[in-house]
């Protein structure tokens, strides 16, 4: 532990401590996951109870699944929406906001992209349809983020409550859209158009299914970093998150910042939804849903709200998804183990965050009473 911390410190400076905490959380989660596999191995056909070789076999298969060319492409594809939405959640944390609305914002982004595909795609080439669809997804997502932001700024309604409630509204808005205005004409059951028939499918740029969205995500990272650390707006966002009172004294309009930050977070999640629909899913039936909004919270926490860190944590979670199948085929371990691993990582991080928040309360500044705000502040780590 100590040696690791010292090495990290030499290379990463002040970022060393949060980095070490994240790494410990990952390693610990893998260890706990190994225990889980061993304990439950008796339930799998062909294995004795407490098969101590199985965890090793499972992780080896997982890694093998990632390290192939297809596996690496799949990792990138899975990571794309996680990185985009994770950037949004991280931006929220920086501003002292806890955005749990990634799910709804993602789905509204999907609706925006489908709307363009439905309306424009038939008559226009993909050079026009795709940019328009991405733009619409981003704007729809931004609108979905704007609402809880505006509610908080005008009435003080807490974003944790409003984003969770709005998630349901957006889920059903999506079902209504694809069974109504965006339904495939002439189809007996409610289903959206297939974007591949509407000049809206994202081009494949890598391997079998590595779509253009990967580039969108990787481009968003430096943009968000630049926004946070090189612009005055980013300074305002970070100041409002770290000490709203001082930000107000500094002449910053904190309510405006809340609305703006939530809208940008929604925009990023909307892009995640749009690229997923246009690049992977193509056609949406009622019942379509996503867990990206929640996984993005793990991504942002694991990255300590650092945009560059989001790339790595997004890739890590993406790799777990990509390797899950090979783990099931080769070792017989159900892919749900990956969900368990993610949950354990989140749990370990939150324990850490709470501990730091509790410790930080005694020395001023973190005076905000709401635990969620503490979480958001603490998520910034050593900032």
């Amino acid at each position, binding site marked *: 532990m100590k040696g690791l911390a010292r090495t990290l410190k030499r290379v990463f400076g*002040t970022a060393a401590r949060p980095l070490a905490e994240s790494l410990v959380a990952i390693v610990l989660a893998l260890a706990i996951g190994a225990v889980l596999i061993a304990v439950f191995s008796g339930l799998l056909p062909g294995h004795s109870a407490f098969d101590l070789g199985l965890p090793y076999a499972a992780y080896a298969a997982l890694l093998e699944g990632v390290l192939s060319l297809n596996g690496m492409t799949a990792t990138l594809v899975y990571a794309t929406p996680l990185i985009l939405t994770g950037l949004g959640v991280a931006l929220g944390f920086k501003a002292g906001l806890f955005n749990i609305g990634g799910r709804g914002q993602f789905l509204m982004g999907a609706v925006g992209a489908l709307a363009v595909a439905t309306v424009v795609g038939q008559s226009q080439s993909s050079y026009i349809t795709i940019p328009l669809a991405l733009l619409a997804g981003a704007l729809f997502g931004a609108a979905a983020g704007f609402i809880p932001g505006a509610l908080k700024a005008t009435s003080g309604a807490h974003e944790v409550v409003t984003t969770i409630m709005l998630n349901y509204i957006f889920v059903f808005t999506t079902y209504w859209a694809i069974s109504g205005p965006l339904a495939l004409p002439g189809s007996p059951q409610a289903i959206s158009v297939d974007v591949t028939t509407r000049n809206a499918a994202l081009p494949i740029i890598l391997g079998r299914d590595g779509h253009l969205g990967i580039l969108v995500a990787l481009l968003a990272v430096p943009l968000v970093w630049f926004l946070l*650390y*090189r*612009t*005055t*707006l*980013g*300074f*305002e966002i*970070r*100041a409002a998150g*770290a*000490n709203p*009172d*001082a*930000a*107000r*004294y*500094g*002449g910053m309009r904190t309510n405006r910042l809340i609305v703006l930050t939530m809208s940008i977070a929604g925009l990023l999640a909307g892009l995640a939804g749009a690229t997923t629909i246009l690049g992977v899913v193509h056609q949406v039936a009622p019942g379509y849903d996503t867990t990206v909004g929640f996984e993005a919270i793990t991504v942002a926490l694991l990255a300590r709200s650092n945009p560059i860190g989001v790339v790595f944590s997004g890739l890590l979670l993406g790799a777990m998804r990509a390797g899950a199948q090979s783990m099931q085929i080769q070792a017989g371990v159900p892919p749900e183990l990956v969900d368990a691993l993610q949950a354990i990582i989140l749990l370990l991080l939150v324990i850490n965050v709470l501990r730091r928040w509790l410790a930080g309360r*005694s*020395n*001023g*500044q973190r*005076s905000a009473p709401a635990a969620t705000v503490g979480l958001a502040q603490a998520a*910034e780590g050593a*900032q």
Partner: protein
Amino acid sequence: MTEDAAKGTPPALEMRGITKRYPGVVACDRMSLDVRPGEIHALLGENGAGKTTLMNVLYGLARPDEGTILLDGREIGIAGPSDAIARGISMVHQHFMLVPVLSVAENVILGAETMSNPIFVDLQEASRRVAALAERFGFNLDPEARVGSLSVGQQQRVEILKALYRDARILVLDEPTAVLTPQETGEIFTLLRRLVDDGRSIVFISHKLYEVLEIADRITVIRRGKVIGERRPGETTEEELAELMVGRAVELTADRGASHPGEPLLRVEGLHVADDRRQEAVVGVDLEIKAGEILGIAGVAGNGQDELVQALIGLRGALGGKVTLAGRDVTGFSPRRMNEAGVGYVPGDRHKFGLILSFPVYDNLILTSYYRPPFAHGPLRNDAAILESAEAQISRFDVRTPSSQATTSTLSGGNQQKVVVAREFDRELKLLVLDQPTRGLDVGSIEFIHRQIIAKRDAGTAVLLVSAELDEVLEMSDRIAVMYRGRIVAEFDGRTADKSEVGLLMATGGRTAAAAEETRA
């Protein structure tokens, strides 16, 4: 120490050659300290001199790089706070470690519970023991009372009781009087005397000179991680101690010189301001401050000063009335427009409005000016200009920081306040609003900040100084207004004002409020 050794009674505590290094700094440089049984030993030093680090070493919170600790003449190693407590060393922190919803007795036994059986705590027995202990030392505390309902002074006694309950032989008190009223300070001193008469030893950490002279048997002065000297109260003076502590001669009372008031700059007419509970906290205040004049507002905390200050800097709207700055109506201006109109502000609670502690120093220096050139090029930050200006201000205002990139929370309180002062003072100001600008600071920083204020006044700024510390108001102000229940009840000339008269008005207000009504009518 040698004479004690000759007598055969070793010091209760001896720390020899303690060195503690942190990256970039030596917090303790071969520091030695010995405390005899039945002695109050004061540790005097400026903020950041190494007092707290030395005590953290004693309490097992920091591991020394060199040096030894001897308890009753035997060398020991201290693994952590619980180890220290087990050896009879207890610490009362500046920020109390109490659970407000629990009773006094429950707080005292927390972590050292008396058990009636392996599962249940015997609260009656605990209460009885705590009561007996309180009685023995004359604490005057009800063991059943909820800690949350006690005054700060009483809470501190609970902390000391906690230490005694664990049979502390050596009690470390970190700035115990910082939060107390003068009367409570007197009470705690009586109590400390009783404890040392019982044979215990006390290490009393402070930077207040008169206090140390009053209570201590011996005084060890430290500066920048080194022990500078040892004095006995009878053989030294405040001036000598201050010089040892700061490293040069210090003016303990600011020489504010003559003021040369010019045109009226700030005019407040019939100002009404509401507090957070929407009660009227400022009730029709009229004020006028001339260029080159310091107006002090004396008042017990909570008489509307906070609301008045916040209205003047734009953080709080006015219910009615008018604020004019250099002939221009600035009523209801936002903080930014106030700032641009030439208003500077130093808050007493710098952690709330003054600084973003998790940000580097250079970012705090541009908190109010980040959006305009040269710090911004349109929407972009100009980091080169920000850093350059930060370096200049750090050296001009003597901010002791490893670098302009250091996280602000790592600076000492005095240096944090200097960051605020650097930001607010380093430009042309029409009005300077100071809300307890030296609260919790050491003499060196206080002297520095007072000088800066006077320099600003002499440059033609109108200065409003609000403080609950009457001494500071009396020392600094050219004119003094007393605020009571949202009204200005009296005004004095700063040079002739009598402390007890002002103090009485602060406390009662009423009598003269009627008189003020009469004169107005």
